[in-house]
């Protein structure tokens, strides 16, 4: 079942890439969209089949691939990975749909997007550590090409920076995985056969630190973030959606799956430090976003800030905070996707992303009124206004994390106010005011260009009003995770857990 999510995009990529005959870019887009629709429908079907009461892995598949290396084709999904799989399928569909009709080199472009989707889905369902690394590295190549070929003015620089950072991230993760398997004496890299509990505390700390740095680059955490603004800004709008909406989630997913779950004892030790790093990311992201003059760069920095919430929540490790972390991963993916899409529409129509140039886009006839309205909505969702998914996720994160890390949580709450500050700046300068009479002859926004944002807005509202649909899939898994985490904690670690609370 899960293999379909990996192989259907590969089949799609081959079909689009090697379809005989001359085909227009739009026809190839249509074919890619058909495959993306298939993936999305399959994800929905998995949601339907998913047992909400079971906390463990479901839809498992196992093929012993290279036993000598301990590599197996082991797949499985639980409440942590399933929402991210659906998010990945949805955003891939949005990315392909939002690519427009006239994309250059469509025979390469659409296959690369489908391959990214395949690799990401593989990473989310891989239950073998080597298999995870394989998929983790696999998405790197198509994404590098997507930025380098279809990116903006400084695409070469941004793509190379992304490649180097992410390759280092992959190497660090691989090193940590090798260490975990070899030092624990496990003959296999299967996730459920790895037990780090018997390793000396120092070794565990070294391994989890390497793992944190590896995934920290991907998320990214401050100060490992410098690849992100360049990559997000230079990437075209659909690729930015993939990068920010899904790819970054690999980092937070890996942190929970391989950090928290495989190092339950040590996690409590690193959690306070992780919470501080999370808070620094949140504050840094928000303050830097306020200082930006480029709206896409502003959204990129806002992403750093919002990923910080997930780190704080994961570090807190309470049932509610972990649920909030999963919710925030999905919420952030949706909100970032709508923001990048709308910023892309604005740039395409107006020809600039500069705050000092943009003005009056809310103008009812000559502006981009619906796009502006959706931008306001997306800004509100990102700022955590009630009624939208951002509020649900952030509220759970704050509520769940406060008992473990009150000060960092309070700082996060204050920073969420800063989100409103930079979005008010963005919206006030971009959407309100007067249109420039000499410049404002923008082409109209066509309905196909609005559709992705309308779909995302509808989901943002729906999940904001019906949060059960966001959280029901993960509740059993996150509760079981915390139970296992608490059981594994020894008295020494338990003391460490209490320390932050005493502050």
């Amino acid at each position, binding site marked *: 079942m899960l293999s379909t999510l990996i192989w259907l995009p590969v089949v799609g990529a081959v079909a689009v890439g090697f379809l005989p005959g001359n085909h227009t870019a739009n026809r190839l887009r249509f074919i890619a969209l058909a495959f993306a629709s298939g993936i999305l429908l399959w994800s929905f079907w998995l949601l339907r089949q998913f047992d909400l009461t079971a906390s463990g892995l479901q839809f498992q598949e196992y093929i012993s691939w290279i036993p000598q290396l301990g590599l197996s084709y082991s797949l499985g999904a639980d409440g942590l990975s399933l929402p991210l799989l659906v998010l990945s399928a949805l955003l891939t569909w949005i990315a392909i749909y939002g690519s427009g009709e006239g994309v250059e080199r469509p025979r390469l472009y659409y296959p690369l997007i489908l391959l990214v989707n395949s690799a990401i889905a593989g990473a989310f369902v891989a239950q073998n550590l080597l298999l995870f690394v394989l998929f983790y590295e696999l998405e790197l190549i198509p994404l590098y090409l997507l930025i380098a070929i279809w990116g903006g003015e400084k695409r070469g620089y941004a793509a190379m920076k992304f490649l180097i950072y992410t390759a280092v991230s992959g190497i660090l993760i691989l090193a940590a995985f090798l260490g975990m398997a070899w030092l624990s004496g496990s003959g296999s890299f299967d996730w459920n056969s790895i037990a780090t509990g018997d390793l000396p505390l120092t070794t565990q700390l070294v391994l989890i630190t390497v793992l944190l740095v590896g995934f920290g680059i991907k998320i990214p955490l401050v100060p490992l973030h410098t690849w992100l603004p360049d990559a997000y800004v230079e990437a075209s709008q659909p690729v930015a959606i993939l990068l920010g909406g899904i790819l970054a989630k690999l980092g937070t997913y890996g942190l929970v799956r391989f950090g928290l779950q495989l190092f339950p004892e040590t996690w409590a030790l690193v959690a306070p430090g992780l919470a501080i790093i999370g808070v620094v990311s949140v504050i840094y992201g928000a303050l830097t976003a306020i200082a930006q003059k480029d709206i896409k760069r502003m959204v990129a920095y806002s992403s750093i800030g919002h990923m910080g919430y997930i780190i704080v929540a994961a570090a807190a490790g309470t049932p509610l905070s972990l649920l909030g972390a999963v919710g925030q991963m999905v919420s952030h993916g949706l909100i970032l996707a709508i923001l990048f899409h709308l910023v892309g529409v604005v740039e395409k129509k107006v020809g600039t992303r500069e705050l000092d140039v943009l003005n*009056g886009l809310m*103008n*009812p*006839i*000559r502006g981009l009124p619906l796009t502006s309205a959706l931008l306001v909505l997306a800004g509100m969702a990102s700022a955590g206004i009630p009624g939208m998914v951002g509020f649900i996720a952030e509220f759970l994160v704050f509520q769940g994390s406060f008992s473990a890390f009150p000060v960092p949580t309070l700082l996060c709450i204050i920073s969420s106010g800063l989100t409103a500050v930079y979005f008010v700046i963005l919206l006030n300068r971009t959407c309100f005011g*007067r*249109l420039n*009479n000499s410049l*404002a*002859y923008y*082409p*109209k926004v066509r309905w196909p260009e609005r559709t992705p944002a309308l779909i995302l807005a509808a989901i943002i509202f729906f999940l904001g009003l019906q949060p059960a649909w966001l959280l029901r899939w993960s509740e059993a898994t996150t509760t079981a995770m915390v139970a296992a985490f608490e059981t594994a904690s020894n008295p020494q670690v338990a003391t460490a857990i209490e320390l932050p609370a005493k502050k």
Partner: protein
Amino acid sequence: MVQTPVKTVTKLPPSSHEFAPVIHRLEAGGAMLPDTPENLMQIIGLYKAYAVPMDFYWRDLLYIAEQVFLEPFPFFKYFLSQEYLDRHNHYAGDDADLRIWRGEATAHPELLAFMEKGETFKMPKLFHHLWHDRINMEFAEACMRAMLWHRGMGGQFDPYLDTDEYKANADRAIKAYFKFNPVMLGLYKLFPDMFLEQVRQLSYYANLGLFWEVMAPVFFEMSDRYDEGSIKSVPEAMNFLVNGIFAIAGRPIYHHVYIRGECYEIIPKSKGFMWLYEAALPYVEAVFYRTAPFRGTKSYNAQAKQVPEDQKDFHYGILYADVFPVGTAGIPPTQLMQDMLHFLPPYLVDYYSQHCRGEDDMLIQLGISFQRSMYCVTSAVIQALRTALLYPLDDPNPKHLMANRKFFEAQMDRFKRPEARLRDIQRQDYR
């Protein structure tokens, strides 16, 4: 810049004014608007589209001034009576005082058709009103209020509103109107100035109604002549307006009120207030030049100093207006453009659909055409004033020509401010 084909031998050195080409064009008998077929098509098409709702405006303005009067709850003031729809325009039809338009003197057929069906479908008048599927009389009232609010723009009409004679006439009408309403009479006793001010406003209703009663047939006739091919250039269109202005200049401006069948002359015709000086010129000054900033264009915050302290320095009229906010709900420009949109001639619909966003931004495109057409009207007013106060354009005396030039330059000085659209309308791609 496109030069007018009207050529005269200029005996003066070239003007050094910022708008020297425009001044030279005016001296040659042209308009501020360049003479191009595209401009001509736009302004004539707009005159026609403007004239149809204007046919409603003037009738309803007079209906309110003469019949609704001080009705405390004027919910139905836009429900024009059949009597006023059938009322004969004094400048159209067989029984016209001066037949300017060869069409009918009663309400225009396109207006009647629109009043019946609107943009939607045939339904009772009340539903059309509530659905706002109707002529936007609010625009006409906004113009009237601009005239009332600015006041003191020359002429005798406005000072007359403060005379004892006017107050006595108004007092008589107020007491007659509320003869059987002791509550309102009591209020009048308590707040006489409030009622007087309302009557002054109603006098401006009458003033504007009488002004537009003339303009509607003028615009209809211009449209017909353009369709027939007898108006072929912008100067010809302007000259038609100039001739019209002089032909009608003496039309009396008055305010009569009909209360229970009896006529009360608040401003009698015998006062001799003339259409040109008491209605046309104040209207042009108040509506084309001054008005007031509409929502979304200026900050009303006094500290922002975006609005001048002195009313005479206001510059928010159509000659200065930023048309791009058209479409914003409730602002007068949107109301007018929406009204004109219903009556655009087919050639303009085709024209607009070929530019910018086609049908999607037609309201703004026609707004800019309207701006062009009002520059043509203002040109006619300037030329008419020059004719009345100064010298012919072909005067052999250089001193006279210099006096004309000074006059034109003084007029153009008003467009030096950056908001003025005179620069923009010189370009055909300003749409």
